[in-house]
């Protein structure tokens, strides 16, 4: 009974994963008449030391890191704030929950397009004209996506916009598992709202919070769609936003260099696996009680 799924997983996940490791030791080019040749660790050496290749690759790693460093804390904190706001008995609270969650169902290819318009470089772009209005006409056209200083920030903002509802829902479920009596007891002890938050809410959702933060870091490392869509069609600064997955795809696809792309993929996987293992280790003690 388990066979079809197990076979599927081995063929489409297990085998290609092993294959990635093998390919990364070879010089394989797509559509080249040359047979693949054994390359040893050469692909990895180039990735980290050959100036032509390591430059863009290390930049991509750095971009991923920058993305995660901003997205993980900001998105988690924002999701927590929203979850707390939504965890009350108010009329229409269900409507608000759906509104915050709505962007999660939007495909990233579309989110990128909507934000391409909001951040458009002309003075008629939505953000620029809003800033123009509040600054009484002192704000001109600014190229948010094309300027290397703000390109990554733009990707961070649109990614948080799309993803925060997902984290919010998880945290909301965590909040609802905190027994109400704990708050009543805290209130009898005259704990302020802040003290209730510190001593009841935070410990109550500690493991959920850690889970959400780690999940966000794993997901943030996989960022690809929005960068690809906006670099190809929306005037996004490529150097400032190229991520590891973007690098792997362009290496495999535009340069037909499968061996190199596989090495990038293996490095990518190792990073994700380390993040996941940290997550398991950190979350487990909280889950067992």
């Amino acid at each position, binding site marked *: *009974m*388990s066979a*079809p*799924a*197990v076979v*599927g*997983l081995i063929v*489409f*996940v297990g085998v*290609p*994963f092993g*294959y*990635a490791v093998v390919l990364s030791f070879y010089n*394989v080019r797509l559509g080249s008449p040359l047979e693949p040749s054994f390359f040893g660790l050469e692909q990895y050496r180039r990735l980290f030391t050959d100036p032509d290749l390591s430059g863009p690759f290390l930049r991509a790693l750095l971009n991923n890191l920058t993305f995660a460093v901003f997205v993980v804390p900001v998105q988690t904190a924002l999701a927590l704030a929203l979850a707390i*706001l*939504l965890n009350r008995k*108010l009329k229409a609270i269900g409507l608000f929950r759906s*509104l*915050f969650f*709505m962007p*999660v*169902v*939007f*495909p*990233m*290819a*579309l989110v990128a*397009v*909507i*934000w391409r*318009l909001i951040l458009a470089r*002309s003075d*008629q*772009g*939505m953000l620029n*004209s809003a800033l123009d*209005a509040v600054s009484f006409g002192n704000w001109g056209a600014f190229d948010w996506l094309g300027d290397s200083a703000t390109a990554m920030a733009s990707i961070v903002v649109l990614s948080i*916009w799309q993803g925060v509802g*997902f984290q919010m829902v*998880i945290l*909301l479920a965590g909040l609802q598992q905190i027994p109400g009596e704990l*708050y009543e007891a805290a*209130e009898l002890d005259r704990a302020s709202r802040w003290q209730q938050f510190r001593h009841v809410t935070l410990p109550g959702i500690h493991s*959920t919070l850690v889970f*959400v933060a780690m999940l966000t870091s794993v997901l943030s490392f*996989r960022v690809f*769609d929005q960068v*690809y*869509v906006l670099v*190809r*069609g*929306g005037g996004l600064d490529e150097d400032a936003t190229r991520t590891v*997955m973007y690098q792997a*795809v362009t290496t495999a*696809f535009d340069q037909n260099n499968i061996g190199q*792309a596989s090495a990038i*993929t293996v490095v*990518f*996987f190792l990073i*994700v696996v380390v993040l996941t293992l940290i997550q398991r280790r950190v979350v487990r003690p909280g889950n067992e009680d």
Partner: protein
Amino acid sequence: MGTTPTPLRRFMDYAVLSVLASVFVLPVIYLFLGSLKPSDEILNGLSGFLPTDLSFDNYSAVLSSLNSDSTGYFWRFMGISLLLAFVVVTGGLFVNSMAAYGLSRLKWRGREAVFTLILLLMLVPFESVAVPLFYMFNDQRNTLYILALPFIANAFSVYQFHTFFRSIPPSIEEAARIDGAGPWRTFFAIIVPMSKPAFASVAILTFLIQWGSFLWPVLMVSDPSVRPLPQEMSVFQGQQPPDWGQILAFGVLLVLPVLIVFAFFQRWFVQGVASSAVKG
């Protein structure tokens, strides 16, 4: 929380919630309004929000401009996306629930080893196998089945079903066994009907991810006749000069199916997301 909020406090709550909600809703309103406006009024500062000059012209323009062999057919892109979503969701429900049943309720040799393998495969994100898969199936490019097949068996779905099935009391199956039902019959006649919530949440998450699927078609599809919708969206928005009205109309058509599903199954969406996390 514990106390009854005062009217002022309640008003403040609504005010804060509304301001925050507008951040999430305004871009969506902008998308819908823009799709109904002439293109030159969309990138036109804050007046992009004024509901003037509304018409469905952009929609008919998208449908007629994507209506030839050279530009592709809109309904075909949509049909391909719907077909892929249908195959991946229903196929996935079948094989992953069966796998989870075998792993959680039946006893056989090697069961523990297979389950451990599935837990390990859950660690592998699709991105890290995309390049070797692309190389392995390079001669299958531009076929529909290669777009669907890699996503049907899904370790995370197996895990979600496994968690759910473990909570079903064994006595229910024992009664079936005494009545002479084999494992298949027990599964389809008893376990599946009992597990609707698990099926619903796995179906919704799978549908959501599959509908937005982008990386794999980017690698595997160059021929517009098998191109799914999100990838066509990215091609369409890259045209020079961009026709914003049509691009936004295209975007609305892209998101409408998920929004409709979302509107009907909202509670399942939220529960599905939440349960997969809190139990995981």
